[in-house]
């Protein structure tokens, strides 16, 4: 039996189509599940929360969506060990739901992707993210190389990791920072980080490794046509670039 992936659509989600297509192009048996069909979710083997503005990020990014009925099923599935991936707004929802970093109670966040610094504005800019954990630490990253660099687009107003100092140290030391922002040559420093995110963090993973929250969008640089400089090496309609991240996720789903 093929493992089935649900791509969740909250009211206000906006990246469901490209996320679905790239998962399928990477071999995933992926399907959209809308909020009015939340009860279908237990039948799926993995969950992807795509980007957007669920509930228009009213109050805070992800705050209301974290209480949506769909999240009851996601929280349940995460406990059972199902793989859960949140991209951008999906990542913000996972933090608000307390699933990532998962160091506190459910729906009592211990960290947040919050308003960008130094100015609190939305930014859309191409970035590179670098794997900052042992690939085997999470089944979602197991298909990547150590220190793998992945192209993506940062497109968010609230992507700066923030938490209190002790907690940030914990996140750093216990391998919760899955990806960091980097220059195209792999060098990591604050100038490669577009939003003043603490620890230069672009993605966090929970302790068990089955839930990962990534702010930039690898799926928006996921085909050769998204980045025509790759056309010498890949067909224009082929998955390439950020697709490597989704291939790894799909492989992780199949390996469960």
């Amino acid at each position, binding site marked *: 039996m093929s493992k089935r992936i649900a791509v969740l659509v909250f009211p206000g989600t906006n990246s469901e189509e490209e996320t679905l297509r790239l998962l399928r192009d990477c071999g995933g048996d992926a399907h959209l599940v809308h909020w009015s069909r939340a009860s279908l979710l237990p039948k799926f083997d993995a969950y992807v929360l795509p980007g957007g503005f669920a*509930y*228009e990020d*009213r*109050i*805070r990014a992800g*705050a*209301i969506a974290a*209480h949506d009925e769909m999240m009851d099923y996601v929280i349940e599935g995460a406990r059972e060990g199902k793989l859960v991936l949140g991209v951008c707004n999906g990542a913000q929802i996972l933090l*608000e739901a307390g699933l990532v970093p998962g160091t506190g109670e459910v*729906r*009592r*966040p*211990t*960290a*947040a992707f*919050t*308003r960008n*610094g*130094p*100015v*609190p504005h939305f930014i859309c800019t191409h970035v590179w993210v670098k794997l900052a954990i042992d690939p085997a630490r999470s089944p979602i990253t197991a298909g990547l190389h150590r220190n793998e660099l992945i192209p993506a687009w940062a497109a968010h107003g609230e992507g700066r990791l*923030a*938490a*209190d100092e002790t*907690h940030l140290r914990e996140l750093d030391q216990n391998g919760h920072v899955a990806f960091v922002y980097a220059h195209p040559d792999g060098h990591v420093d604050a100038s490669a980080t577009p939003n*003043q995110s603490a620890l230069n963090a672009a993605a966090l993973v929970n302790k068990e490794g089955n839930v990962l929250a990534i702010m930039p969008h690898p799926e928006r640089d996921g085909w050769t046509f998204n980045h025509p400089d790759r056309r010498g090496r890949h067909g224009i309609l082929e998955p390439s670039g950020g697709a490597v991240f989704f291939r790894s996720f799909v492989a992780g789903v199949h390996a469960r």
Partner: protein
Amino acid sequence: MKRSVAISLKIPDNAAYTTLTTLRRLGIDAARVERSEVWVVEDDGDERDFLARMESNETIFNPNKHRLVDLGIDRPRPGEVWIAERGAHDETREHLGGKRIAGISKARRYVGWRLVQSNGAPADDAVVRSAAELLLCNPATETALYEGSQ
């Protein structure tokens, strides 16, 4: 001296509506939710033209869509919780939209929430606190101020 104002929308506040429906789904009893931007400022200017000076900064106040009231006190009233963001933002610069207001040296911004019961009375303290803990405040990055809290 410290002065404070609340700026709210006089056009429909979509965010307050979604907040109300979410709070109800979470079992919190409120008939109405009001949202405002609360400014607590350090003001050395003339008290008589304080409101006029605040209103002169169009990055925080546009008369076509906002109403502005002098709160008189610099802390929440019954039924209210004020949410402040912790962190490194330069308060004056960001919060006044990069625009100066004569006489004002410091400004602190809060999101003010006011919960009202169906009889028009402010919601009980316990209701306000659970609304903040469940939804309105992210303890990782924000601080909630209640009536009587310091």
